[in-house]
């Protein structure tokens, strides 16, 4: 599949209006708006794309779209906005759904990427128990060999100490807003995923 990059727009993370950017994106004939957004601009992009009935699909990272409050913040205009997320009601691992439920019961909202700290703490705890020490020199070799089945995926680390990304390891979960609901749709082979929808269908 051939794709062309028709333009690159970089609004401020605090932008309260992206009309000019969206007009320019419309003019450029984009089919996909690949978003890399954090901050209030994520709400503004979602809402204003909906208000303009843009045919292009917004997909990428939109931190605000990970939150339950996104639909209200966009006044229900952000249908079809998609983002990579960390948690959803799907079986990424056997721990994902129980964690999701327990988090919602305790905090009255869904977890976003920040709740990944839970897995990080368990990795450290397991490493301390195995190494019998809290010294980093002794913990690092243990973590390097570790395969931790966490709440968001199975965490293993490469030679550069980055998480190993890929199916069966750690991928994140892609979600799309559909009529006020955050619907998980990727990775497709995971139990609980639902179909992605296109505007106008």
């Amino acid at each position: 599949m051939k794709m062309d990059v028709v333009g690159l727009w970089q609004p401020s993370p605090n932008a309260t209006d992206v009309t000019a950017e969206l007009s320019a994106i419309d003019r450029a004939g984009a089919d996909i708006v690949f978003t890399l957004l954090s901050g209030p601009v994520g709400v503004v992009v979602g809402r204003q794309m909906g208000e303009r009935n843009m045919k292009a699909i917004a997909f990428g990272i939109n931190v605000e779209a990970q939150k339950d409050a996104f639909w209200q913040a966009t006044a229900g205009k952000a249908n079809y906005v998609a983002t990579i997320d960390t948690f959803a009601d799907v079986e990424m691992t056997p721990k994902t759904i129980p964690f999701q439920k327990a988090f919602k019961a305790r905090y009255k909202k869904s977890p976003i990427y920040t709740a990944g700290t839970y897995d990080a703490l368990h990795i450290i705890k397991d490493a301390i128990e195995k190494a019998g020490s809290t010294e980093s020199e002794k913990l690092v070799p243990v973590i390097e060999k570790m395969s931790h089945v966490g709440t968001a995926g199975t965490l293993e680390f490469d030679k550069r100490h980055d998480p190993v990304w890929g199916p069966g390891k750690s991928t994140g979960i892609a979600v799309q807003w559909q009529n006020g609901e955050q619907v998980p749709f990727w990775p497709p082979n995971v139990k609980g995923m639902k179909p992605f929808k296109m505007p106008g269908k």
Partner: protein
Amino acid sequence: MFQDILITGLVNGGVYALLAVGFSLIFGVARIVNIAHTAFYMLAAYCFYMLLVQYELHFAIAAPLAVIAVTAFSVLCYRLVIEPLREHESAVLIATIALALIFQEAMLIKFGGNYLGIPSTLDGVAVLAGVTIPYQRILILVVAAAALIGTWLMLYKTRLGLAIRSTANDLEVANLMGMNVHRVAMATVAISVGLASVAGVVVAPVFVVDPLMWLSPLVTMLAIVVLGGLGSLKGSLIGALIIGYVEAITVFALPQGAFLKGAVALSIMVVVLLARPEGLFGVVFEEER
């Protein structure tokens, strides 16, 4: 692209004008640099949100109620905080910064830090010359134009307007002529914040409501009033349109630097000030005074 710039610049300029004209008005009349001006704009947006979304009042009731409530509150703030300090301009400046921060923190406590959305008053879009414009933006433009025309009529066709202009022209002479300059200043604060509240109410449905929403327009508004000439209403109006258009042109001409639109607008202000330290209409304004 030309049509996009024309319409985007006009709508953005209209919103900025509502804020800048009010700010300039109160400075011109009472020499009050009201840093809390855009914080009142934020209060109006929250008030509108509360009435419309939480109390589910009709738009036609919620919008005027929000404007009236925030305007009345601004008069209270003026009487309690600003009026006692009026002789000390720097103290007024600091007091209004404090007010703005108090409003910000109060909204954070009451509504939390989440971004809030307000439903559009008018749904749907119009396509003009190939440009998609949501009806809400057309409403913003119409309301901004009506509010600015109303302000102009009030200033030039009413006795209150005459008193405001006289006070702006020479406060001491106006006082000697028997005008109650404190009341005139209070009325000006109400009109000024009224305009900011109108901006808050009409703009809130297209922007995001959050406790920090007053900061970004404050910087832009200060740039506009300095560019136009501090205290000059005509300067504020033209400055607002200039900044609105400069921002729109920046995004279209420099897509990868869209985040720089505010910086470009501020740079133009600096360039204008280097050439004309009094701003675009500063001299005319001084002559008027």
